[in-house]
């Protein structure tokens, strides 16, 4: 008999298990999050006799007689203080790491009521946060300490209008840990499903023997390809991704699913999976795009190995470069990157009338619906999808990883089924950032004015298309940089290989090509004899000018202002590097890009409903502020409903920094209709009515036959500066971002700080190693920046009017991550004279030995 005390309650239990499983499954304490169950992430922290400790390692027998405290056991005052502090500091984004952070904060503050910044950072060193860059979490802990010492200050009366630093609407549930991510749901009669994965990246499946697994008591089903009622394939844009690999076909990467086992308990499930015997004919994998492009390379997909070929050309780059006074030509390479969101993929699906209901953590409920329905042999409307809280995405949750498997399993066993990836599976399965090999040629005149740029890009898109085509396209269209010149030509190709798929990743291809063009500009400045700042200032795009893609930029274009904002700090430091970037907001290039939002009046309150995922960026708060601004209603009179396909209209995927602008404008339009109705009626009289706002962000197709095509409705611009200390450590990053109208400066700073720190990893420490198409990196060895290692990040928000939609607000999600790496590489170039062309950089104090 094991005795253990949790939040003041004594438990006596027979079964030994890990403390994490005990707290979540037996005590139902869902604030203790399971981010990896392998000791690497810190979301599972609890206090043992007052000391923070990860709960996924120790067995309960090893902590017998100890007192365990989780957030549920905090005093009411403590709860209020942490909610206030984390909210006011803007410390919460996706929220998945937050309870663990709060635990470690309490562990510190209980023994050190007035800690310094470094002590706070040290106390949080074992907790990874992928969203915030930690800074605002430190702020929150400082504030909590103050409230605990001195009592809470009067709570501010927020108007919730645009521009106000309001705490996010989901702070309370995320800080106290009662907000539900899919894994936290308690569902009656739940069964557990998981896929048997490919044993080899490329192998023909010769046979699948399910008999032993099926014979095991407690196993409900072993599902293979022939059990799929509809089409075999799913896919975000190209339907090329086999739900399950059928006998006779080849696996394309190690994450391929062969069979889905469904069992009564997770333990039985693990045992049963081992009993499924798969025979393979092992084949040589295609390990990189250069092998894939060979004529005699095996065809990984029917149409061949070239997923996408993009050619963008305006003016005459070749001639312009030939005539330029200075020409630089250089190869660059950027690596695979893992999203490393804190919440692993999880879905619960259940039979629902004659269809299926899927609870998901993804970047678009309608994308999930549209991908799953044909596979399940159902019309779209019979596949209903509801978003639970999403514990981070960054592009990595745009594809089907578990949703379709859960849906299929639920239909077949006619019971609710949960499919959850282990962290190790997550590392292998979801699409990563494309590694790209690039060759750039840049020609300038004597003044450093860009005459022309030519470039070639080769991308490894891995096993499946995912968003590989559009990512390559954005990489190409944005490779020119945010500069005014006319002669630009780029050729990009993305090849299938047997590596994990590459798809969307914050920055969407631009992170890669920005590194190349910005590094070349830094070098060119030296050749021309001007400063890296000056060369950018001379070439920077200004309102009314024409981008290399032909688009005339609008009055909201504030690249120059971002450059001016960092000029002094850049020039004051000897070892400073800088880089500029642009990033589209919205899908653009002539594709139908709709924002949709319904404002429904129910019990006198406004219900904001939109099928648009909040993956941590704070969409709900943005929409509430937009509605408050446009209608004048108070925050308490509004309810933001989670994204779903049942009563929220399709507002597209959370991708391309589009939700603030596109769904924001849709919400604003809905508000205008409401306002009109309110001219003649009272809100009581409007009870039950709905106001539907729709916005089509109309753009021109790539290569459209118009003199100045509008590729995107808006672009955000940025300049970032990296300042190094003499010893090579980073003193700080200064990031100036053009955001149009800042909806919530607190959230924008959070996006900037998080995006910068994410790309600090991209530039300096992160790896995702593949050997013969087999991923070798674990969550803990990626090299994610830890709390005590991050430098300061200073955000400068540049506001500028001129965009006539969404109250002038542009998206900020992705661009925060784009210029960071070249800014850092530029700074090291000044420090040590080594011009580096590949990432992560070498010869820095951050390099892992």
């Amino acid at each position, binding site marked *: 008999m094991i005795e253990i005390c949790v939040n003041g309650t004594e438990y006596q239990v027979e079964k030994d298990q890990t403390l994490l499983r005990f707290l979540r499954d037996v005590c139902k304490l869902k604030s203790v999050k399971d981010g990896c169950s392998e000791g*690497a992430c810190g979301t599972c922290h609890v206090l043992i*006799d007052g000391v923070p400790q990860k709960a996924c*390692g*120790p067995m309960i027998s090893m902590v017998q007689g100890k007192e365990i405290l989780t957030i549920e056991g905090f005093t009411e005052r403590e709860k209020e203080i942490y909610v206030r502090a984390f909210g006011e500091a803007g410390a919460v984004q996706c929220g998945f790491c937050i309870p663990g952070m709060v635990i470690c904060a309490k562990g510190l503050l209980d023994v050190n009521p007035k800690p310094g910044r470094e002590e706070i950072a040290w106390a949080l060193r074992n907790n990874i946060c992928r969203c915030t860059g930690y800074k605002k979490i430190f702020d929150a802990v400082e504030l909590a300490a103050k409230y605990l010492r001195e009592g809470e200050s009067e709570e501010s009366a927020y108007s919730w209008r645009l521009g106000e630093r309001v705490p996010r609407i989901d702070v309370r549930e995320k800080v106290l840990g009662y907000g539900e991510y899919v894994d936290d749901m308690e569902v009656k009669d739940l069964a557990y499903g998981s896929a048997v994965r490919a044993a080899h990246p490329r192998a023909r499946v010769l046979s699948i023997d399910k008999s032993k697994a099926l014979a095991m008591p407690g196993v409900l089903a072993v599902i293979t390809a022939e059990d799929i009622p509809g089409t075999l394939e799913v896919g975000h844009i190209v339907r090329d991704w086999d739900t399950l690999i059928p006998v006779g076909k080849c696996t394309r990467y190690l994450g391929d699913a062969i069979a889905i086992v469904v069992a009564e308990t997770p333990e039985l499930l693990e045992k049963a999976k081992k009993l499924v015997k798969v025979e393979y004919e092992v084949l040589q994998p295609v390990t990189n795009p250069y092998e894939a492009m060979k004529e005699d390379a095996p065809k990984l997909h029917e149409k061949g190995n070239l997923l996408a070929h993009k050619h963008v050309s305006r003016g005459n780059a070749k001639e312009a470069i030939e005539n330029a006074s200075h020409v630089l030509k250089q190869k660059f390479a950027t690596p695979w990157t893992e999203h490393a969101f804190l919440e692993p993929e999880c879905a619960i699906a259940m039979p629902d009338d004659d269809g299926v209901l899927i609870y998901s953590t993804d970047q678009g409920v309608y994308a999930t619906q549209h991908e799953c329905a044909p596979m399940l042999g159902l019309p779209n409307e019979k596949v209903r999808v509801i978003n639970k809280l999403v514990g981070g995405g960054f592009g990595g949750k745009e594809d089907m990883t578990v949703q379709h498997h859960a849906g299929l399993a639920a239909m077949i066993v006619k019971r609710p089924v949960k499919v959850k990836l282990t962290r190790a599976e997550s590392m292998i399965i979801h699409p990563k950032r494309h590694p790209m090999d690039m060759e750039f040629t840049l020609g300038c005149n004597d003044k450093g004015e860009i005459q022309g740029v030519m470039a070639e890009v080769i991308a490894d898109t891995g096993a499946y298309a995912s968003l590989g085509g559009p990512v390559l396209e954005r990489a190409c269209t944005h490779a020119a940089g945010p500069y005014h010149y006319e002669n630009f030509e780029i050729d990009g190709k993305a090849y299938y290989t047997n590596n994990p798929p590459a798809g969307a990743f914050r920055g969407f291809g631009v992170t890669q090509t920005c590194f190349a063009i910005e590094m070349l500009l830094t070098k060119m400045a030296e050749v021309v004899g001007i400063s890296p700042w000056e060369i950018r200032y001379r070439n920077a795009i200004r309102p009314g000018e024409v981008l290399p893609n032909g688009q005339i930029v609008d009055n909201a274009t504030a690249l120059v202002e971002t450059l001016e904002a960092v000029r002094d700090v850049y020039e004051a430091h000897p070892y400073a590097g800088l880089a500029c970037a642009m990033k589209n907001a919205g899908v653009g290039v002539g594709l139908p890009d709709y924002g949709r939002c319904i404002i429904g009046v129910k019990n006198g309150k406004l219900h904001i409903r939109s099928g648009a995922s909040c993956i941590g960026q704070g969409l709900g708060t943005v929409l509430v502020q937009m509605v408050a601004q446009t209608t004048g209603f108070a925050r308490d009179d509004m309810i933001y409903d989670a994204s779903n396909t049942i009563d929220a209209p399709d507002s597209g995927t959370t991708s391309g920094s589009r939700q603030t602008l596109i769904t924001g404008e849709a919400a604003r339009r809905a508000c205008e209709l409401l306002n009109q109705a309110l001219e003649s009626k009272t809100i009581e009289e409007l009870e039950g009515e709905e106001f539907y706002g729709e916005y089509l962000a109309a753009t021109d197709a790539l290569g459209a036959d118009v003199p100045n095509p509008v590729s995107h409705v808006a672009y955000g611009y940025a300049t970032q500066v990296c300042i190094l200390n003499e010893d090579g450590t980073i003193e700080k990053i200064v990031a100036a971002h053009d955001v149009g109208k800042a909806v919530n400066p607190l959230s924008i700073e959070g996006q900037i700080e998080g995006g910068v720190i994410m790309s600090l990893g991209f530039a300096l420490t992160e790896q995702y190693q593949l050997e013969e198409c087999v991923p070798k990196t674990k969550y803990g060895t990626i090299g994610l920046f830890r709390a005590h290692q991050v430098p300061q990040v200073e955000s400068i928000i540049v506001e500028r009017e001129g965009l006539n939609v969404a109250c002038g607000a542009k998206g900020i999600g992705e661009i925060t991550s784009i210029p960071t790496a070249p800014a850092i590489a530029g700074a090291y170039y000044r420090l040590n004279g080594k011009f580096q062309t590949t990432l992560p950089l070498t010869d820095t104090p951050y390099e892992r030995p």
Partner: protein
Amino acid sequence: MKNKVPRFVARVYCKGCEHSQPDAEGKDCTYGCIGCGGCVESCKLHAITIGEHGAAVVDEKKCVGCGLCIKACPQDIIHKVAADHSFQPLCSNRDAAAAAKKACDNSCIGCRICEKNCPMGAITIEGNHAVIDEELCTDCGFCLVKCPRGVIEDVRGLICKNR
């Protein structure tokens, strides 16, 4: 990247063993603490005692990490570590597994189970015993949980295998 550590303490990389002096069974370890008391004498803060298994034990609450005991130790088994580094393999054995097993009940036999279970890649086997890189370690405790020999200890005393 070097950690900026708030506090260092001295730690004795040996748990001791009832058999650490050669006995009837001939068990003997030449690498561990010999209980000479040099460290005890060297410590100005009286933070070190000889524990029940015959090995020196540092009271980490009293220790300020001055390093005098490290100099005094003839066996070179006292190390300066971050006070917050909670999980520590307490063994300095250099013999191969069989000999190590024979010499001491609490010896690290270099089986690498901890290395395999470390999510951070922080553990290596050096000179036949486990060594944790404290800059990479994130205090999860998987090594303690998985160690078949009970070599790795939670110095805070929170997680204990034979409770």
